[in-house]
Structure formats: C-alpha cells, structure tokens
C-alpha cells in the first residue's frame, strides 16, 4: 500500500516560500524580538529597532501600574489556573477584570475569553445555530470566518462596507429566521473604518442582532474609547461588542460585552469559553488595571496617537507613497506595494535600517494587495516619527520602489 503524506497539500505554499527565501531576503514571518525596551523600541537581530507594527496603540505594555498589578497577582495567585472558567479557573482577578470591562463599556454583562480569536470563534459559532444566518463583511477577520465555519448557521457574505449590499442580502433571507450581522469598527488590513451608523440601521430594519468587533478601535474612538460604535452613536443598537486585550490593553485575552438579559448562559454553552483553560491571574490583573487606567488616561493618549497618525500619514503621502486610505481613518497606515518581491525587499530594507512594520499578503489582505502595514502607538515620539519617515524614503531608494512625484 502506498503511504500518503498529509503535508503534500502544502507543497504550493512551501515552494512559494522557498522561492522567496532563495532571492536572499529574510523571512518576514520569523522575526524574533531579542529584547524589548519600551512599547516603541526593541532589539531585533542585535539592532535597535523602532516598532511600527505591534497594535500596541495605547502603549500599556510597560505601564508601571499594570506591571505592578501583574507581579503582585503572579506572586499571590501563581503562574496559572490550570482550569476552565466554569470549573476551577475563575479567580477574583477574572471577576475584577469583567467588572472593569462593564465599567468601561457601561454594559450589564462582560465575559472574558482566553484570546480575542476565541471570543469571535465562540460568539459567532454559538449565537447563530442551525436555521439561523450569519451575515458578515467580506473583509472580516479570520476569527470571524472560522466562527462561521465552526457553527451550524448558513453564512452570507456582503461586499466590504457596502450598506446597499447588506440591505439587499438581508432582504433575500426569510423574515422569520434568526440573523446575526457581524461587523468590525476598524478593518485591520487597510485600516479603514466601517460606516457603522448606516450598517447598523440596515441590520435593525431587517430584525437582525448586531455584533461589532472593536479590536482595533478600543481606547481611541469615541469619548470614552469604546470604539467606532460609540464614536458614531449607535451603542444602543449594537447587541454585542467583541474586543481584545492584545492591542490597546497591552496584554492578551478577548472579551464580549452586552446588555442582553440572557447573556450569562453563554458561559455554559459557548465551547471556546468552556473547554479551555482560563487566563493566568497575572494577565487578568494587568488587563483590569490597564482598562481602568484607560478610563482616566485614555483621552490624553488618544490625542497623541491621532496626532502621530496624522503626521505619519501626511508625511508618507507627501513623500510619494501610495496608501490604502486617503485620510488617516484609524491608527493603522497601510502602504500599498506593487508585488510580493518588492514588498519583502522593502520590508527587509526597513528592518535593516531599524524600523519594524508588518508585511501582509493575500489571502490575509483583500483584493490581492500586498501591504506594508504600520500601526501607531501613543508613545511614539515626534523624533521617532520623523526618523521613520526618513527611513521609508531611504529604503524606497535602496530597493528602487517608485514613488509618486509631488
């Protein structure tokens, strides 16, 4: 009998990766941080590097109160819970963290998952069951698509950010069927924001429940930093907000907040919540402290973050780079690149000059585009922003990337 190799299906991507590495570039998906100096600086390959691809929007990773809370919890409660939230894995720190979330969002309920990925996986797969519909934006994050694949609902996809397309597709569904419309405040690849007021209004017109993932908006959209939902004034019409601790909060974990009266039952029926170990108490203490600090210090940090973002966005356009959005819509600035080889060469040139950005390629990106994606931090200084801009220009010259002539 012939022996089959289950890895044969990966041959095309193995060959593509090898061909790329054979051109002599470093592997953009195998970066190691040897030391981390601050939210904006690390040592990579022995070189001092400005971090511009970490989603550490509010710079909370090294906040002294956050670290102190984590150290205390680590010492008092140990390194981990070794248990599920519904068995031995709920400590006071988990409850405190959920209280902090309820205060931050002004909701009656909050549920902490072990990652943001699991929060979307769990909410989408559990809320919509057999005979129900999930209606999702075409550019949705992998965790939302995976939640759809895990559940039993019928899945309908609408064109990215198109209010008209959502309306049309909802109109084709049986009026009596259960419907969950899944949106994101900020889409992380291009850094564009959703027309949430219009999308939510259409969803409500068709009797759908609405879930908004605000992972890339927490802390700096809306007066209280609750996200694009708050910024456009539709909090009352959004049934579920999903978020993460691995961006603005500066640690790891995911959550969902809601005012639904039956929300708490999810703890028993949502498998990605129930059948996994809870986060370590130190992580929960860091998250709770960070969330509460964002309630007081958030607005000042948000102001700095927006200012830096506007400066870099305008600077890159002035230097002739093509960006995914004409205006700085979020704290993500995506530079459009012509092809994979130029993207990797430019990425490597930047890294060798001491600037780390994310390289993104299809299918993670929409419309087959290649991107160098920058995410800003409230702690980036004006001097760092100026240095980044100089290095972008120098890197483009070094690799022969054509720039628009002003």
């Amino acid at each position, binding site marked *: 009998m012939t022996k089959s190799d289950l890895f044969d299906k990966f041959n095309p991507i193995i060959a593509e990766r090898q061909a790329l590495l054979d051109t002599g570039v470093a592997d953009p998906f195998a970066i190691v941080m040897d030391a981390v100096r601050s939210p904006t600086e690390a040592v990579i390959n022995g070189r001092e590097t400005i971090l511009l691809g970490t989603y550490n929007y509010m710079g909370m990773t090294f906040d002294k109160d956050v670290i102190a809370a984590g150290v205390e919890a680590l010492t008092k409660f140990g390194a981990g819970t070794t248990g599920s939230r519904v068995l031995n894995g709920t400590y006071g720190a988990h409850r405190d963290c959920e209280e902090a979330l309820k205060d931050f969002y002004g909701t009656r309920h909050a549920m902490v998952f072990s990652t943001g990925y699991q929060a979307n996986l769990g909410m989408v797969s559990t809320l919509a069951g057999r005979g129900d519909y999930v209606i999702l934006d075409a550019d949705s994050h992998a965790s939302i698509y995976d939640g759809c694949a895990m559940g039993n609902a019928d*899945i309908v996809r609408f064109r990215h950010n198109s209010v008209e397309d959502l309306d049309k*597709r909802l109109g084709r569904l049986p009026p009596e069927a259960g419907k969950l419309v899944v949106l994101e405040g900020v889409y992380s690849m291009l850094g564009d924001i959703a027309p949430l007021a219009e999308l939510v209004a259409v969803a409500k017109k068709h009797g759908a429940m609405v879930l908004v993932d605000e992972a890339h908006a927490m802390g700096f959209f809306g007066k209280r930093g609750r996200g694009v939902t708050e910024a456009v004034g539709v909090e009352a019409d959004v049934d579920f907000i999903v978020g993460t601790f691995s961006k603005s909060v500066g640690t790891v974990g995911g959550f969902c907040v809601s005012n639904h009266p039956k929300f708490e039952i999810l703890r028993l029926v949502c498998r990605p919540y129930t059948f996994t170990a809870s986060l370590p108490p130190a992580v929960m203490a860091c998250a709770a402290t960070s969330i509460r600090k964002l309630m007081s210090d958030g607005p000042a940090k948000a102001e700095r973050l927006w200012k830096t973002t506007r400066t870099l966005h305008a600077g890159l356009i002035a230097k002739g780079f093509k960006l995914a959005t004409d205006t700085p819509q979020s704290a993500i600035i995506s530079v459009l690149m012509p092809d994979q080889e130029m993207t990797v060469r430019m990425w490597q040139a930047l890294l060798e000059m001491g600037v780390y950005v994310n390289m993104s390629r299809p299918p993670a990106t929409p419309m087959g585009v290649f991107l160098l994606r920058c995410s800003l931090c409230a702690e980036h200084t004006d001097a760092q922003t100026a240095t980044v801009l100089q290095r972008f220009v120098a890197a483009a010259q070094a690799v022969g990337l054509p720039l628009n002539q002003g």
Partner: protein
Amino acid sequence: MSNRAALYARIIELIEPFNPKKIALTEATSFSDDIEMDSLTVMDLVANMEDEWDIVIPLNLLPELETIGQLTDAIAKLVKD
C-alpha cells in the same frame, strides 16, 4: 434551449472574467484545481451569481460545489425554489 442549458451558458459568461488563463470551461471543470481560483475569488464570483438570480448561496454550501456542473445544479434548484 432548456432552462438548465440557458443557466449554464450564463454561468460560463459570469466565470470568464475570473478565468485569466482562458482554460476551456466544461461541466467537469474544477474551480480550485483547473481554474486555480482562491477561496476569496470563489466567494466574489458566487456573490455575482446571487445578484444575477436574486438568490442566496450560503458560503457553507461552497465546499460541495467543486465543479461548474455542480454549481449549475445548485443554482438551478435555488432558482426553481
């Protein structure tokens, strides 16, 4: 021309813009193996077909619609319903 034959002819027209290598399209042509469409392109193509006939083709049905013939049968059924 039967209803299915007319439907098939229109489906071929809708697929052509997504067939840059201009391979010959038949009932047995596979979207992934022959036309080499990635999953995102398949979803975009299906969205156009939903609009063409004002039907819903849920994404969860796609794994079973591997060939043009299978897609035609599925759309014929949805249009009739």
